[in-house]
């Protein structure tokens, strides 16, 4: 367990040096989206009916932006960034000559991906709160949610890192997995607008569940129904985390 922390700490040491750049994206991205979609589109769209209440379009997409950001941060970190460390910088090779095990290295990397999801969520929450779009104290639960989502998306990202032959092939999961989720997970319009079959498919997307939870927490609307998306995310993590460890072990130990 200490080994996991030391791997995490290596990434933290590097992050601290570039924190200004690391801060910029989650600070500016929600601003851009809120301005473009929120203020540009909301005039055309009007209010949205979501689970019995009526909310402004801006309030509707704000939690989705947080959910997307949780997904992107962990997934990007454990695909491109982890791949660069593994393949080009040989950082894992060097680590493997120390008492660290492959499992500790990969777990540390996934924890780091989830940590980046948490950091950027906190920054985004600050910006979105300035628009008054998050209700507190329920909104604070977005932080542990970012960790759970980060672990789920980081694990599947690391699984892809274990199997892609070359870094260019990450285009595939981004194009076939991340982009459709970004658009069709009830993020920018209610899922009910989709045809029945598409709604059913969207229920397999982890981002759908993450968005539902983020929205409930932002609006401070609690119900027993929240348990299902939470279980889905935890299951997703429970399946892909060991798969990622397995594939990375196969890849690194020769």
């Amino acid at each position, binding site marked *: 367990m200490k080994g996991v922390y030391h791997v995490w700490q290596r990434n933290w040491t590097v992050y601290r040096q570039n924190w200004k750049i690391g801060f910029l994206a989650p600070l500016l991205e929600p601003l851009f989206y809120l301005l473009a979609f929120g203020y540009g589109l909301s005039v055309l769209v009007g209010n949205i009916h979501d689970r019995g209440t009526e909310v402004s379009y801006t309030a509707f997409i704000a939690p989705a932006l947080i959910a997307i950001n949780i997904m992107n941060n962990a997934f990007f970190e454990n695909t491109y960034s982890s791949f660069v460390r593994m393949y080009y*910088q*040989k950082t894992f090779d*060097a680590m493997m*000559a120390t008492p660290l095990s492959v499992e500790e290295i990969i777990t540390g990397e996934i924890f780091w991906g989830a940590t980046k999801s948490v950091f950027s969520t906190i920054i985004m929450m600050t910006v979105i709160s300035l628009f008054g779009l998050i209700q507190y104290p329920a909104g604070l639960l977005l932080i542990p949610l970012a960790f759970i989502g980060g672990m789920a998306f980081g694990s599947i990202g690391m699984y892809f890192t274990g199997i892609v032959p070359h870094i260019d092939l990450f285009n595939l999961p981004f194009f076939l997995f991340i982009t459709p989720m970004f658009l069709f997970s009830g993020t920018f319009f209610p899922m009910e607008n989709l045809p029945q079959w598409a709604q059913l498919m969207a229920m397999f997307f982890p981002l759908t569940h993450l968005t539902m939870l983020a929205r409930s927490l932002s609006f401070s609307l609690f119900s027993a129904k929240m348990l299902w998306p939470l279980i889905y995310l935890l299951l997703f993590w429970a399946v892909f985390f060991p798969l990622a460890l397995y594939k990375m072990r196969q890849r690194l130990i020769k």
Partner: protein
Amino acid sequence: MIIEAEHLRKTFGALVAVEDISFHVRPGECYGILGPNGAGKTTTVRMIYGFSPMTAGHLTVFGLDIRHHMRTIKTRIGVCQQENNLDPDLTVLENLLVFARYFNLSRRPAMEKAQELLAFMALDHRKESKVLDLSGGMMRRLVLARALINNPELLILDEPTTGLDPQSRHQVWERLEELKAMGMTLLLTTHYMDEASRLCDRLIIIDHGRILVEGSPAELIRDYVGHDIIEVSDPGPALRTFVQSHRLHHEDLGHRLIIYGNNHDDLYHEIRNTYCREGCIMRMASLEDVFLKLTGRGLRE
């Protein structure tokens, strides 16, 4: 014994990288593994530092079975891998401090050890530099410093001076000699014969995953090629007949004839005066002659 390797074998699918290799490394010695490219040197040391699990065989380090005590063994060894896998995201000093954490060293002793090693490797003026700004020789010394961060009893070096300029190589050799003088055991792979002659107490030459010979550099030279070497370029048929009729130990490479043996002064003068006016030299035999004789002169690519 520091390392006891018995019948090590490693296969990658159909490819046999190491067929059958056994050797023992004693405390405080520098032990060399020599061989052409693809002979199985790197695969052998990788099995010892736990990077690749062996396919078959028995291997103990510090008397501990590698299959059950890898983590304990790894806390007591230092590894200098072939490629410079330094952390480009960190400075010179941070490279050492971050590595020290992997060995569970706490902050203060890690800092002290890192400063000491940077001074030892003549890198203390570049502490704050990024790794990518260092020269090849400096990077190599930093890899070496990093391998020493945990005060290892055994230092494993996989081609430590490949790609370095002569000054840097000599500097690395001097540091390694100092470490040996302090009682550290070294296991070294190389394809530089001068490096092996200078550093190794004993060595094996391997090819195609098997051991060809084992011994000290001097013993191997004496046993396999003798003390003197006469080299003749563009030898004529008369010389070939002479060499064969005198049953001289030799190798005919077409454009070059190599005669092995001891106390060849008289022979050399005879050959020189009778068979060749130029392109004929006598020199001391080296490990390189043993190596080429045993592993052949064909290219390995």
